[in-house]
């Protein structure tokens, strides 16, 4: 598998990988902080659990948004220039997957605004 192809695959799957990273961090951090009784700590007056969820969500959301933008640009570029069917397919898949990932990441972050950290 060439380097260019590896990049294409990473670009296409990047959004879902960002979702997986967000999920792992927010669940892992919440469980650890609540399990150890460290969740009462605050930074700038914000609880450490919601702050972690918020920052992780924003970071992964940004990553997915950038990947979506790159996928869209690549998709437009390939529509203008002649490209192999595989390239077109991968860039289009990237648009769809990264777009869906944005929603999934946002959806996962919503509980931070609604629920108490460790109840």
């Amino acid at each position, binding site marked *: 598998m060439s380097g260019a192809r590896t990049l294409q695959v990473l670009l296409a799957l990047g959004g*879902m990988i960002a979702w997986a990273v967000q999920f792992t961090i927010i669940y892992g951090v919440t469980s650890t902080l*609540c399990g150890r009784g460290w969740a009462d700590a605050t930074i700038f007056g914000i609880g450490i659990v919601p702050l972690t969820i918020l920052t992780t969500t924003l970071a992964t959301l940004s990553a997915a948004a950038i990947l979506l933008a790159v996928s869209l640009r690549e998709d437009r570029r390939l529509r203008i220039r002649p490209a192999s069917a*595989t390239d077109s397919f991968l860039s289009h898949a990237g648009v769809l997957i990264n777009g869906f990932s944005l*929603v999934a990441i946002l959806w996962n972050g919503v509980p931070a605004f609604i629920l108490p*950290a460790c109840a």
Partner: protein
Amino acid sequence: MNAPELPKSFERRETEFPNPLPRPEGELDALKKAWKAPKGLSFITAVNNTYVGLWYVGTAFLFFILAGILSLIMRVQLAVPENDLVSHNLYNQLFTMHGTVMMFLFAVPAVEAASVYLLPNMQAARDLPFPRLSAYAFWAYFVGGLVFFGTIFFGMSPDGGWFMYPPLTSTKYSPAENADWWLLGIGFIEISAIAGAIEIIVGVMKTRAVGMSLDKLPVYSWAMLVFAVMIVIGFPAIILGTLLLEMERAFDWPFFIAERGGDPLLWQHLFWFFGHPEVYIIFLPATGMVSMIVPAMAQTPLVGYRLVVLALIATGFLSFGLWVHHMFATGLPKMSLSFFSAASTAVAVPSGIQVFAWIATIASGRMKLTTPSLFVIGFLFIFTLGGLTGVMVAMAPFDWQAHDSYFVVAHLHYVLIGGMVFPLFAAIYYWVPVASKRALSERLGRWVFGLMFLGVNVTFLPMHITGLIGMPRRVYTYPVGMGWDALNLVSTIGAFMIAAGVALFLVDIARNFRFAGEDNAGNVWNASTLEWLPNGNYATRSIPSVVSRDPLWDQPNLSKDVEDGRYYLPGTATGGREALVTSPFDARPQYILQVPGPGWQPVLAAVFTAAFFLLLTVKFVFTAVICGILALGCVIWWLWETDPGPVRPPADIGGGIVVPVYVTGPMNHSWWAMIVLMVVSGMVFTCLIFSYLFLWLVNPGAWPPQDIRIPDWIWPAVSAFLYCGSAILIAVASRQLRGEDRRKPRPVPILIGVALLLVGGASAVDLWAQWQTDLSPSAHAYGAAVYAITSLQIFFVLTTLVMGIYTIARWLAGKLDTVRRTTFDNTMLFWYYTAGQGLVGLLVVHGFPRLTGGV
């Protein structure tokens, strides 16, 4: 040796064919001879996917019937209140075996089995890349599965439920060997599933029709690719879980015993990290089948191909964020539950995309109401109902009400029967004409569908109400006057309707299924994909070049041209079995893979492997060890015949394309398999590290316990130095194995030998360092976790030792040199992995307690 640069314009118009006619005399006979299956008793040594695939499907269906019979006994027991047909003890075994056999011995093997048969045909490959591995996986499953099922006749079956929660299944509450049968029997069958998954990943990525680039890959292949990746990621968790629970039961290492720092919830995490993806592992192949059947029945291409592929991939990811929704009632923080609740609702989106794609396809064509169509419609109806109750139980507050009640039983049966059994029946009715001289009966098929569809709804729809009015699952009887009597009786009647449908299906099979070598029933549905090309034991006569996702519709003479031998590789270049390996993205020809033929090795290896695990269950340790050694011997015997090297110069496969008959490095199929195996190993190790951290989390102030000292830092440093040294020596050996002169003397065996001493020494030093601190694996979960990491590493080091000695032996036998070095490459990859895992293990075991300071 690397493949030469190939012309990029290998895709041809229909009128230009890679190979001219007439084909040379004897070409087809040579092909037939190479792929001929053995006869007589040796028939069981056949490895052709067409035979192994059918045996596999048949065995999976046998387990479906056996598990179904168990469910009928349960339904008779529950038909009336206070029934005494079976005792509570037997009932516990019945529901445990029903769930276990349906999930582990029917559902996963059935979809894997179908793919062993279908994938090569659908991708116009001559066979899967590792046919002996498929045969090994099948025989291990066949022998192990039958012995496991046989325990029900001796009262020895597991009885702790199909998810085997400790502490119920711990030695204290389940001292007999029933639980061990589950842990060792099922754990071992999971290894067989992983072997199949490796085969599928490499098969989908590397053995396709020429020009079948990713955008033209059949949806079924996409589904099986995602399925196999999910197995690779998900199954290691249950393998590790069973290993830990068995170690607890056998050696008293308290991973799940709360009094000594363990936690039963750890089991639930490990089980459901596998268990929930398992639902999609079963469901995705079924959707892949439906995505093939619907276009054929509607006679129009699938609507939204790219969206369906997106849905498959998204489901694969999201399904790993759902596992805690099986643990909503365990007292975890609501915030944590909400993440899983969110993912559980989000996963409905990709499932919905697929459902709408099928409906749109049906709407855009003219759907023929055949038996496969009926089963697809039944699937849509039943699965959608199951999906809706799934969204209900994804809401934690509702789940707390419905938890452990018959509502959940109804939900999971709607999902699994709707999502897997109905598509499988659709697939059998649809694809039987590929494997049989006759199609199945449409008339009988409609009766089968009608009985099963009504039966499923009559059985399980009332269970929603039974559950909501309070009937818990897994009770062997109930008193009069609870309001459950009539509902249970209706459910029992429904169960027998399903059984009648399945019995009628067996009649249909007996009447109409006749195995076809080369004279199958043909393309009776006017379907568009390559499995409907004329084929024999060697699959298609020549390997076609495809230009679309529906080649049989878009290339009308394809069948005849392929059969005439006009396309690629119409004969055998090496005189033996071959497959054409293509590039993973664009499906350009890369090289000819010399495929191994029939042999006793995989059969015997599977039998002895099964014997090893099953004899351990009944504590026949000495005999088990003998069988383990014999299994290893058979595997080495099997491998000794592989890695044949370049037996001839590069061959012309047609169209001016000349490809080598042997390559090494990242292009090689076994390189890919080793990478997948390393991912599996990495997942087992990751789950173990997760377990270590989880146990730390539940043991504040006791990690390590106060009376335990951590080994001095010098010992892990020495161990790390030795791991690095061994890996460097292997890298040097790899460099030595380069160059054109094959006869030049090189110190390769010496380098491997020294590296063996170093890697063995690294592991021994770490074990000794722990041992001399008097750390006991039984006293506390800390010791158990440390020794679990050390033990896993020792297992990998021992495997590396065997591989290293084997590699040296091949060198000494003249079967390894600068060109013929695939064996070395495989050993090298595994070696690097083992060294890397060892270093991470040292970091965790010695670094983490120092980092946290025992907090």
